Structures are given as structure tokens and as C-alpha cells.
């Protein structure tokens, strides 16, 4: 066995000091045995990486979301919101929030899209954004301001912080809640009239919708 054989893997892993690495490199160029061994270690190493990757993918409970690209994801959510809001009857389905009036805005679709994208943008900088006190506070401040200055505030993207802060606790609900009628997603007659759904949208590290939890 070649005396350099014991250094091949460390060399491959860039763990040798510069002069030692140079020595091994020079040797390998002239030693067929080492080249063959080195190629084998490289293959094993690559295969191990692929194996670990496959193991992780095999254990994943859910497939990757189709709308992974963050911009597309945010855009899709905004578009869906606009669609739901354009639905007749949606104006009556808002969840009440403190400090927000019940008036309808002149352009609900655009304001909801704006409302949806702003909190997303505001929390995008932190990996701990799912620690939810970050985003609701931003949203709440925004609403308070608009409630004072402009009574025609839109509360369809409701932040839970305004509600949960009333009893002095930190908000424990998702950053964005969207209420929409059951008819918007189910065929006519599938759900009793007047039933609404609330979608809790959580935002992932890369800004894509990580989890959308719909409850009646």
C-alpha cells in the first residue's frame, strides 16, 4: 500500500496543511494506485451525500410546496385574497378587531393585497419570525395609526395581536388571518350558508407561505 494512501481522504476533505496538500497532489499525479483509490473515496463520499439527502427526503411527511418561490408565493396569496374579497358576501365576514371600524374600503382588493404583503415583508428579516410577537406588533401599530387618521381602515387582514393584547397576554395566533366564505372554496350546497373559513397563514424563512391552516 502506498505511503500516501492514508492521507488521501484528508486531502480530499481539504484538511491537510498547504505544504502537505501540495506534496500529496504532486504524488497523486504520478501514482496510479492512489488515483484509483482517490476516485473510489470520492465516489463513496458523493454517494453518502446522496444517500443522506434521499433519507431526508424519504422521511419528509409532506411534499415540497408547489409555490415555493417566495415572490410567487406572496403574489399568489395576495391574488387569492383579492379573489376572495371580490366574492359577494365577503364584506360581512370580517372578524372584528379592536380599534378598527366596520366601513368598507373603496378598493378592498388592492388594500387587502397591500395588507397581506406588508406584514410578510416586515417579518422577512428574522428566522425567528414565527415567534409571532414580531409581526403582529407591526401590523397593530399600522392599524392604530390608520384607525385614528382614517376611519376607513381595512381590517380583513386581521392581526390577532389587537385582540389578544386586550387581556395582557402576548399574541398567540398566526401573523395573518384571512376570513372568507365557505362558498368560495366549496361547491354550492356543500356547506351551510353563512359558514366562513379562517385561514391562518404562516410565513417561512424564505418568505413563502409555510403553512396555511384553514379552519371553519
Amino acid at each position, binding site marked *: 500500500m502506498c505511503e500516501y494512501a492514508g492521507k488521501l481522504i*484528508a486531502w480530499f476533505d481539504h484538511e491537510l496543511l498547504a505544504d502537505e496538500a501540495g506534496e500529496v497532489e504532486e504524488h497523486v499525479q504520478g501514482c496510479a494506485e492512489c488515483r484509483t483509490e482517490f476516485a473510489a473515496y470520492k465516489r463513496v463520499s458523493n454517494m453518502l451525500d446522496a444517500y*443522506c439527502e434521499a433519507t431526508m427526503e*424519504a422521511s419528509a411527511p409532506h411534499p415540497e410546496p408547489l409555490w415555493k418561490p417566495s415572490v410567487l408565493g406572496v403574489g399568489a396569496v395576495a391574488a387569492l385574497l383579492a379573489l376572495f374579497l371580490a366574492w359577494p358576501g365577503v364584506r360581512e365576514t370580517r372578524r372584528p378587531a379592536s380599534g378598527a371600524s366596520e366601513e368598507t374600503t373603496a378598493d378592498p382588493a388592492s388594500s387587502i393585497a397591500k395588507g397581506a404583503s406588508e406584514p410578510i415583508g416586515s417579518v422577512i428579516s428574522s428566522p425567528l419570525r414565527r415567534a409571532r*410577537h414580531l409581526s403582529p406588533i407591526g401590523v397593530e401599530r399600522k392599524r392604530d395609526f390608520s384607525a385614528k387618521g382614517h376611519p376607513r381602515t381595512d381590517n380583513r387582514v386581521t392581526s390577532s395581536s389587537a385582540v389578544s393584547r386586550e387581556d395582557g397576554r402576548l399574541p398567540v395566533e398566526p401573523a395573518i388571518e384571512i376570513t372568507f366564505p365557505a362558498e368560495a372554496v366549496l361547491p354550492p350546497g356543500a356547506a351551510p350558508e353563512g359558514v366562513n373559513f379562517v385561514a391562518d397563514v404562516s410565513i417561512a424563512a424564505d418568505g413563502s407561505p409555510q*403553512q396555511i391552516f384553514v379552519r371553519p
Partner: protein
Amino acid sequence: MSGDSLPMSLPLAGFATGACEATTLYRELRKPLLRYLICLGLSSDEAQDVVQDTFLSLHRHLSSGGSKENIRSWLFRVAHNAARNRQNRYDRRFSAPIDPEVAAPVDEATPERVVLEKEKFRQLGKAIQLLSGTERECLLLRAGGLRYREIGEVLGIPTSTVGDTVDRAIRKLAEKCNV
């Protein structure tokens, strides 16, 4: 709740401290950490939990002025120990660490190639099972992109020992898999 949510137990004061570093580290290391834990034998949900707890600890560590040196090995060590504490599942790896049948090749290739790859993975899975615990952990941490020095810090062994262990483990795999 599954997914990437983090529990809400952090005080607001000092929250921003270290948040930037935590963000960068989270983006860079979340996946390698998950992969390491799953390959150790944790279920996907358990691994997600451990990763969340690990980054929560990282945040506390950074916001309380903890050292930023060797932070990668710090993260892996916390995750590794958390996995170790989930003793039941962690022990499972000694009997059935990774199921090679489940781990199918990921790339879409011809049926022949898929069969061939599956066979290779099966062999590799068997060979990995025959490694010692430390050999396996060294290889998995190495696959997670850690340097020998960092692996040594995670496992609490000298760097030279890591080098020898990785060398031995790769040789064993190469021998068993006939690559």
C-alpha cells in the same frame, strides 16, 4: 404544531440582538441540521422539533452575549445532544439507523439506473449499519459540511481522532460497496 414555528417564550427585550446572525445561520444550517438528525434516526417531526429548540437556544445564547466563535459546531453539538436526550429514538439507529429501502434515489433516471442506484443505496445502507457509532456520526457530520475540527467539538474528541475515524469509515464503505 409542526412546521418551522418557534415557540413564543422569548422576552421582547433583547430580541433583536443576534437576530441577524441567527437569520444567516438558520438559512445556512437548518437543512444540514435536519438531515443530520434524520440520518441519526430521528423522525422528521422529532428532527424539526430539535432544530427549533436548537435555534431557540442559539437565539438565547447570542442575545445573552454568548460567544460567536465556532457557532456551527455549537449548533450541531446542541442538536446532537438534544437528539441523544431523546434516547429511545436515538437508540433505534443502532438497530436500524437508516432504511435503505425507503431511501430511494432522488434523480429521475431510466428504470435500469434507478434499480442500480437502489442496489447501491441498499449496499451503502448495510455498510453504514456496520460502522461504529462514532464512525457513523463523524461521517454524517462531515456530510453536513463540518470540518474535522468542528466534528471533534461536536463529539468531544480530538481532531486527529476525527481524521483517523473518517479515514477508516470511508475505507470500510468503499470496501463494502465495491465502488
